[in-house]
């Protein structure tokens, strides 16, 4: 029997998604940093809980009522990695993002191995963190990541046949352009940063000195949006890109 609570919870989730509201747990011992995050997320209309050490954070996270958890790696009373490990052992699969001053390649590897879903080195820009948390929080819920066909307005991308059609006209894309568009469309309506594109489409985590991603996106844009009145690939100033039906 599917319990009423579960049903209501699911409904609540759908509602919150509808209003684009997330419930976020921030586990961070630096009061200034957690206040800053708390305020910034609330300004975006999200609900925030703050824990100032590992044990409190673990207790709150164990209730499993969050859309995303942001955890600092170095916190008193149970460090970040052990906390994540513990939650995953408990089968709590709330998306977790690690914030850490340790930003080297192997630090990231350790973090992800412990069960985190994303890793953001400090210092970070809030728009980067927000974009990542928004995408994490929807991961595996309603976004049809497993769908064969992604659709935004009159643009259609078929992941099996690897064909892209806009207004019944097939668009010829290079393999990398296809992956770029695929990633943007999977997260349609959400902001995707340049770093996220570099990570997910090229699998690189370093910061190129030049914004090579912009050139790739403008190439893709030329193929997708040229000759159409409503551009689907939009630049979000100071953050990144989003694929959205601007006509609606």
């Amino acid at each position, binding site marked *: 029997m599917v319990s009423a609570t579960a049903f209501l919870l699911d409904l609540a989730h759908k509602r919150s998604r509808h209003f684009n509201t997330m419930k976020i747990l921030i586990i961070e011992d630096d009061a200034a940093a957690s206040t800053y995050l708390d305020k910034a997320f609330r300004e975006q209309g999200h609900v925030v809980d703050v824990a100032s050490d590992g044990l409190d954070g673990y207790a709150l996270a164990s209730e499993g009522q969050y859309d995303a958890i942001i955890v600092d790696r170095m916190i008193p009373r149970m460090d970040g990695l052990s906390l994540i490990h513990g939650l995953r052992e408990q089968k709590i699969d709330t998306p977790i993002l690690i914030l850490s001053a340790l*930003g*080297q*390649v*192997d630090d990231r*590897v*350790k973090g992800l191995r412990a069960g985190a879903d994303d890793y953001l*080195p400090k*210092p970070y*820009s809030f728009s980067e963190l927000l974009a990542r948390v928004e995408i994490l929080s929807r991961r595996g819920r309603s976004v049809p990541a497993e769908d064969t066909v992604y659709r935004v307005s009159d643009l259609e991308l078929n992941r099996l046949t690897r064909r892209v059609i806009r207004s019944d006209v097939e668009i010829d894309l290079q393999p*990398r352009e296809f992956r770029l568009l695929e990633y943007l469309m999977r997260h349609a309506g959400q902001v995707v940063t340049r770093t996220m594109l570099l990570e997910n489409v*090229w*699998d*690189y*985590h*370093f*910061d*190129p*000195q*030049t914004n*090579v991603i912009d*050139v*790739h996106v403008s*190439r893709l844009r030329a193929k997708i949006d040229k000759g159409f009145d409503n551009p689907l690939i939009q630049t979000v100033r*100071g953050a990144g890109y989003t694929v959205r039906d601007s006509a609606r």
Partner: protein
Amino acid sequence: MTALGRLFRTTAFKLALIFLLIFTIFAGAILGYVAFSARRLLEEQVNLTVNEEIKGLLSQFNSGGVLRLVRQIERRSHQPGSSLYLVTTAAGETLAGNISSVDSEGLLEAGTYELSYRVVEEGEPRPHRALVETVILPGGFRLLVGRDLDETDRFHTIILRAAGWSILLILALALVGGVFVARRVLSRVDHMTETTRTIMAGDLSGRLVVTGTNDELDRLAQSLNAMLDRIGELMAGLREVSDNIAHDLKTPLTRLRNSAEEALRVGDSSDAYRNALEHTIEEADDLIKIFNALLMIARAEAGNVLEGMKSEDASEIARDVVELYEPFAEEAGIKLVVQADEPISIHASRELIGQALANLVDNAIKYSTEVHDQNVEPSVIVSVVRDGERAILSVADHGPGIPETDTDRVLERFVRLETSRTRAGSGLGLSLVAAVARLHGGGLKLEDNHPGLKALISIPSVS
């Protein structure tokens, strides 16, 4: 601690003392054995003499009876330095001899034994010891013949005294030797300690004295000197880096501070503030990039082996990087060519090698745009070739290049050639590439591309 105290504490001195102790015990044992043997030999000789004399006297007695014996004894008794003689009747009455009183009640016993008696020397009776043999003759007569042991005793005393002096002499010599050796070693060690102290106090130019004997202290001094050289190099590097950090971080920090201050002073609209803030964030981001690059280099130079290194195809990494930069190059009007068809396995981090190549390609494209020569087609060639046991990943451009005299210098952290000082960039690009190459057991080489620059990363390949 006193000088003597310090001396006693040295290893050399302790060793000398132990050696001395062992040596003394052996010397004592040998001398003791000699003394004992000499004494036994002398006593045996005395025994033999007494025995022979008794045999002679017995034959006198046998041929001439007791009268002849008495006469013989009387004659012998008066010779100087003679043996001890005594002939008594069965009742103990003295017939002849040179012992006036034998400390015996009544009869002399037959056999060999030691006898105490007195000899009057310089008017004073002194106790003497003698070895005597007594036989009982037919008719109850008793004949005693003996020899004074005083001489033997004296000889023995001389030997013992000689042994004692020898041991004392040995002790004294060994002690002096030990002190001498210890002081010699101590003075060298003291010197070393003194030198290391001054070095610790901050004078890194000091070096330990190498005497040239190639003994263990020399070898120790050489190792320490080599270590000091290395430390000196590191210190010099560190000092240079910190100077450069001061310069290259202070410059953007100053710019950041100035623009914020200016906005505060003259800003009159929210747009002006907004622009200033955006500019501030940009500058801060640049600073973060510099920090990240520095950390990366520091880590690479510390030689930490990265997790996540695995077998990768160098050609594939190169193709990926070229693919990433191709649109950017095209937009800049540069032809980006990749020549990497042969798969070459390297044990590497794709991320780091990718970043290193990206740095080189980025540089190459930017510098290529500086050349406006119609005869040279601006192009950047990325190639991966096998060179024996190594994979050579190279990025070549036809930009302004780097003067040969500067090729080593540009690999250092923060060095940017003065001509390009104004261009954006941390100056860490090439040193980061070099650090990544070193981390993978290889190196970075810069060559003249006639014209332009060719950067070669060489990494050991795996089969």
